[in-house]
C-alpha cells in the first residue's frame, strides 16, 4: 500500500495535486491547536476589519479573528466528515461483504434495503430529524444519523466485488479448510475491497461535509460548534454580503472548495488505480 501511494504521488498528477490541496487544508486545521482564542470567544478583536497583516483574513462582525476561527471550523468539519465516513464504512463493509458472500435470499433482502436507502431523499429526513431534536441536536448525533443513512451506495459496490471473490479458488480453499464465514470475510476478502473502500471514503467525506455545510448554513445543526457551515450561517445572520464583509464568506467557501476538489481528485485517481483499463486508455492515441 505504501509503495502504491508513493507511485501514485510520483506519476499521477491528479493524485499529487489532490494530496497537496488536502495537506494544506489539514495543516491549516492543525493550526487551531495553537490558536490564541477559544473557538467561541467573541469580541476579542475589532469587528469588520478587512484582511491585513494583523488579521490575515479579516475579522467578523462578532469580533472574531477569522484566521483562527476558520482553523477551528475546518478542523471540526474535517473531523465530522471522517467520523461519518468511518462509521458508514463499517456498515457498508459489513452489509456489502455479507450480501456478496452469502448470495441467495439474504443478498436479495439486503440489496432491496440498500436500494431503498439509495432512492429515499435524505435531506428532508435530516431536516425532520433536526426538527424533532432541536436543541438536543449535536455534532455527534448528526454524524451518527448521517452514517446510518449514507452507507448504501458503497455497500452495493463492495458487494459486487465480494460476489466475484466468492467464486475464486482461495475462497473454496478457505471453506474446505474450515474457516468460518467471519474469518473468510475479514482475512481473505477484506484486503481485496480495501482500495474501493479508500476511494469511496473520499466521496463519502465529500458527501457528508456537503450536507453538513448545507444543514448548518440553514441553522439546522448545533450552531455553537464552529464548522464551515456554521461560519457561513453567522455571516448570513449578520448579512455580511450586503454590508460588504466579503472576506467572512470568501475564505470559508474557498477553503471548503479546496477540500472538496482535493478529496475528489484523490478519489478519481484511486479509481484509476483500481481500474487499470482507464490507465491504458489514457496513453492510447
Amino acid at each position, binding site marked *: 500500500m505504501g509503495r502504491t501511494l508513493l507511485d501514485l504521488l510520483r506519476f499521477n498528477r491528479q493524485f499529487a495535486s489532490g494530496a497537496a490541496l488536502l495537506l494544506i487544508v489539514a495543516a491549516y486545521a492543525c493550526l487551531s491547536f495553537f490558536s490564541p482564542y477559544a473557538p467561541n470567544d467573541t469580541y476579542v478583536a475589532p469587528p469588520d476589519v478587512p484582511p491585513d497583516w494583523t488579521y490575515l483574513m479579516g475579522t467578523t462582525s462578532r469580533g472574531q479573528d477569522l484566521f483562527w476561527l476558520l482553523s477551528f471550523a475546518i478542523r471540526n468539519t474535517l473531523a465530522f466528515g471522517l467520523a461519518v465516513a468511518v462509521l458508514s464504512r463499517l456498515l457498508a463493509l459489513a452489509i456489502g461483504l455479507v450480501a456478496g458472500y452469502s448470495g441467495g435470499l439474504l443478498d436479495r433482502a439486503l440489496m*432491496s*434495503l440498500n*436500494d*431503498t*436507502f*439509495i*432512492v*429515499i*431523499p*435524505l*435531506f*428532508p*429526513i435530516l*431536516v*425532520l*430529524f*433536526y*426538527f*424533532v*431534536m*432541536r*436543541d*438536543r441536536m449535536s455534532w455527534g448525533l448528526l454524524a451518527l444519523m448521517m452514517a446510518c443513512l449514507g452507507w448504501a*451506495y458503497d455497500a452495493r459496490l463492495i458487494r459486487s466485488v465480494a460476489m466475484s471473490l466468492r467464486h475464486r479458488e482461495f475462497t473454496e480453499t478457505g471453506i474446505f479448510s474450515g474457516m468460518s464465514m467471519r474469518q473468510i470475510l475479514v482475512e481473505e476478502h477484506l484486503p481485496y475491497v480495501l482500495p474501493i473502500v479508500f476511494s469511496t471514503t473520499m466521496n463519502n467525506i*465529500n458527501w457528508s*461535509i*456537503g*450536507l453538513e*455545510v*448545507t444543514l448548518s*448554513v*440553514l441553522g*439546522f445543526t448545533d450552531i455553537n460548534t464552529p464548522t464551515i457551515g456554521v461560519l*457561513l450561517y453567522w455571516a448570513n445572520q449578520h448579512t455580511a*454580503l450586503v454590508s460588504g464583509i466579503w472576506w467572512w*464568506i470568501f475564505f470559508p*467557501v474557498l477553503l*471548503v*472548495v479546496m477540500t*472538496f*476538489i482535493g*478529496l*475528489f481528485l484523490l478519489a*478519481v485517481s484511486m479509481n484509476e488505480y483500481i481500474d487499470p*483499463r*482507464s490507465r491504458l*486508455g489514457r496513453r*492510447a*492515441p
Partner: protein
Amino acid sequence: MKTYPTYILTRLGQFVLVVFIGINIAFIVTHSTPIDPVEQSIAAATQYGSTSPEAIALMRQSLKELYGLQGGLADQYFAFWRRILLGDFGPSLSAFPTPVSVLVGRALPWTAGLLLSSTLLTWVLGNLLGGLAGYYRQSRALRFAGILAMAFHPIPYYVVAFVLLIVFGYLWPILPLSGGYGMNMTRALSWGFIGSVALHSILPVLSLALVGLGGWFMGMRSLVSNIVTEDYVAYAELGGVKRSRILASYVMRNALVPQVTGLAMSLGAIFNGAIITEQVFGYPGVGTLLVSAVYAGDYSLVLGITTVSIVAVSLAVLLIDLCYPLIDPRVRAR
C-alpha cells in the same frame, strides 16, 4: 432472461418497499425525540403574535393526533399510516387553517418543473459531451470541457448556488435572483408570464446543471472509451460505417443503458440538491416551503413534505425504471 411483466412486477414491489421503509424511517425519527414535541411546537408556533385559546386547543388536539401520541405504540403506528395513506396531514400551523396538502400541492409543481428541466438538460448534455469526449479523445475543446465539468462536480449544490447568487446578485446583476416569477405578474397562461417563469428559473437550473454535468460526463466518457475497444466497433469501422453512425447507434446507444440506471439511482440526491437550490433562490417550491416550515415550527408541514418527497421521488424512480425496457431490448425479449 426476465420477461417484461415480471420486470414490472419486481419494480412495483421495490417501489412499495421503498415507500414502506421510507415512511417507517420517518416514524422512527419522529418518535426518537426525548422532548415533548407537542408543547414545543405550540410554543414555537405561537411565539410571535397572539393566538386565541380555542385555536391553541385545536392545534394541541391535531398535533397530538399528528405526532400519534394517543394510544399505545401500535395504535400510534397505524394512525400514522392512516394519515399518510389518506394524504391528510391536518392543518398547517404556520398558515393556519390551510391544510398541509394544499400547501404542498401548490409547491410541488414548481419543484417538479425545476427538477425535470434541469435533470433532462444535465443528463442529455452531460451524456452527449461525455460520449463525444470518449470517442474523440484528441479534441482539446472536449478535454477542456471535461476539466471544467469535473471542477464543479465535487462542490455541493448549496455552495454553487450561493456563489452564483453572489456573482449574479452583486457583481453582475442581470438575472432575477429570487422568486418563481415577476412580482407584478398575474398567474395566467400568457407569454409574459411564461417568459418570466423561464427567466426566474435560469439561475436555479444553472446551478443544478453545473453540479450535475460532471457526473454524467465522466460516467459516459469512461463507458464510451471502454466500448470503443470492443470488436464490433472495430468491425464496423473496418466495414466503412460512417463514424457519426458508429458513435450514435453502436457506441452511445450501448453506453446509455447504465446511465439510465444511474439516473434512477441518483434521483434522490438530485432532489436534495433541488430543494436546497430552491431555498437559496427563494423559488416557490417544496424546498423553500420545507425550510420556512422549520423556521415557523410547523411540524405537520415538515412531516407532510418529508413523506410526500419520499413518495414522489420513489414514483419518479419507478417511472424511469418502467421506461428502461425502451432502451434495453433485453428486458423486453422473452
